[in-house]
């Protein structure tokens, strides 16, 4: 895999959003995915397929952003869902650890050809600054803290067992965010 191939690519066909993660999914590239996902959901897209075939790993912020998408889809219409396909054993363990295997539809068959595949004419675009190895725009501390807080709140909403795991982090980030807002 070349360095330039890393990042998050997205495409949309028939109101289904396809997401391909190549390399790591982390808090450093979660923001553009969250922004894109919100736009598509506001456009009426009701299903997401996230392909992790070439995903080396995900941190809790990235997983929390995916959880936020899954929670919103479930809230909007109970039959809508986020599907995760081509999940390695390591990534499956991450999803299970956070209880997200119960929120997402998961294909852990190791990548059945054609499973979760978009139509052949689907146009994919790589989200800007989604390759964490070559970020061009410095992360903003305020938006990053808010993103991390929102993502970990999502994880705790998705599964209460995550509350003790992320209590200290969310308390710290919430205090930081509230102080910034109070300071204007």
């Amino acid at each position, binding site marked *: 895999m070349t360095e330039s191939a890393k990042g998050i690519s997205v495409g949309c066909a028939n109101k289904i959003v396809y997401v391909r993660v190549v390399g*790591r999914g*982390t*808090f450093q590239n979660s923001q553009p995915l969250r922004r894109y996902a919100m736009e598509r959901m506001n456009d009426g897209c009701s299903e997401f397929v996230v392909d992790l075939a070439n995903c*080396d*790993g*995900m*941190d*809790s*912020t990235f*997983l929390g952003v995916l959880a936020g998408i899954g929670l919103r889809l479930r809230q909007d219409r109970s039959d809508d869902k986020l599907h995760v396909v081509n999940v390695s054993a*390591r990534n499956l*363990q*991450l999803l299970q*650890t*956070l209880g997200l295997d119960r929120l997402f539809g998961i294909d852990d068959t190791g990548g059945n050809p054609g499973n979760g595949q978009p139509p052949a004419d689907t146009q994919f675009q790589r989200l800007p600054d989604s390759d964490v190895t070559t970020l061009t725009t410095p*992360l903003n*501390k305020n938006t*990053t*803290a808010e993103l*991390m807080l929102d*993502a*970990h709140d999502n994880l705790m909403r998705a599964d209460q067992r995550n509350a003790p*795991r*992320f*209590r*200290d*982090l*969310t308390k*710290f*980030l919430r205090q*930081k965010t509230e102080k910034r807002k109070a300071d204007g």
Partner: protein
Amino acid sequence: MKDFRFERETRGAVQLVRLSGSLDMYSFPRLETQVNALFQQGQYCIVLDCRELDYIGSAGLGALIGFAKQARQQAGDVKLLNVPDRIYKIIELLGFTKVLEVHSEESSAVDSFAKK
């Protein structure tokens, strides 16, 4: 991606834990187990040497705050040593340097416990 590893050494009353590889959601429970084992042994003065650490995820960063909080309740602390630039930029960005002590010299990190 390098596997996460740690080695523990003792410096007087201070436990020095050298971390290497990738500290992510997958490997983090191993560090958590190690630190909790130290706490159970009454060891609350801990230095985490991050020189060989390639990566730290957001859950790992958050848990460091939890470790430090627990240690401080017992008059100890968890301090960071030799944090690589790319990781330091992240913890500074998130404001973690205001709640976690970071050192660049082993002697400074170890001796700082005696000054408390």
